[in-house]
């Protein structure tokens, strides 16, 4: 059975998916005692977590880029914000007018669906008419939201 060992040199430690024990003592002395199999599983879990974080970060960045471009291409968007909520992100779009007829809302929903189909992430999209713009504070903290677009 392969055996883990602590090399005196820089020789790599070799682990195999067995039940042989491994003891790890980090600087805070919070000692971990695991099987070699569990260590390998923990490594796989960490790699997956890092990859997922990177993908979510990339997806959010791509979404912000899309929202900015979408807002630039229209002439009825006053500003856009992104803000964290309890379990998702809020994207708030403030209209230049009262969006009579709902064309801006329909276009926003179309963008929402397109982005969801691409990354399956859930953002909450909120449209505020110009006269409702002050109400943004009811949906997000000033300190935590970021303005990502403002019309010239």
């Amino acid at each position: 059975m392969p055996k883990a060992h602590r090399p005196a040199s820089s020789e790599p430690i070799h682990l195999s998916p067995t039940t042989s024990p491994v003891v790890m003592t980090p600087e805070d002395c919070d000692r971990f005692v695991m099987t070699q199999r569990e260590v390998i599983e923990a490594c796989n879990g960490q790699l997956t977590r890092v990859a997922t974080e990177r993908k979510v970060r990339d997806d959010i960045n791509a979404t912000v880029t899309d929202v900015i471009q979408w807002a630039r291409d229209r002439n009825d968007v006053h500003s856009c914000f992104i803000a964290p909520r309890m379990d998702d992100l809020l994207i708030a779009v403030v209209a230049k007018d009262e969006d009579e007829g709902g064309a801006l809302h329909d276009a926003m929903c179309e963008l929402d669906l397109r982005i969801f189909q691409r990354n399956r992430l859930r953002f909450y999209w909120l449209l505020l008419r110009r006269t409702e713009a002050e109400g943004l504070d009811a949906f997000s903290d000033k300190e935590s939201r970021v303005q990502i677009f403002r019309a010239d």
Partner: protein
Amino acid sequence: MRSATKNRGSRSSVPTEAAHLDTARRHLAAYELIVDSHPAWGATILFYCALQLVEAYFARLARHNRSHSERERSIKSDCQGIWPAYHRLENESLKARYLEGGAFAMPAKSVRRELFDRHFSALLMHVDPQGNWLQSARPAMSAEGAEVTA
């Protein structure tokens, strides 16, 4: 007697399609009663009526959504046609409840015209294409309205 839930007595019971439709019918009657005097609450009730209709649609497919986010995923994945209408109703109901200082901008006429005639009706076209539910709900609306106002 009609069963309002499946698996009655179990911890995971979920409402049936009939139960959702019945709740939606009562919501619609309440909407009609209140929309002219309190359009913000009319918009709110109309959204919850739409929510019940959407859940009735999914119950027909033996599915149940336990949260707003789960429902949103279901609609966006399997019933995209209703998303703009559903989202508009949800958006207006959120603003009606949370915008401070009575900033909700829709008068009763706009709630009726934009939210009911356009968006609620569009949603109904998907979840009740034959109009059966609306036909059954309208007489009930009148009856319940008369009862409350009497």
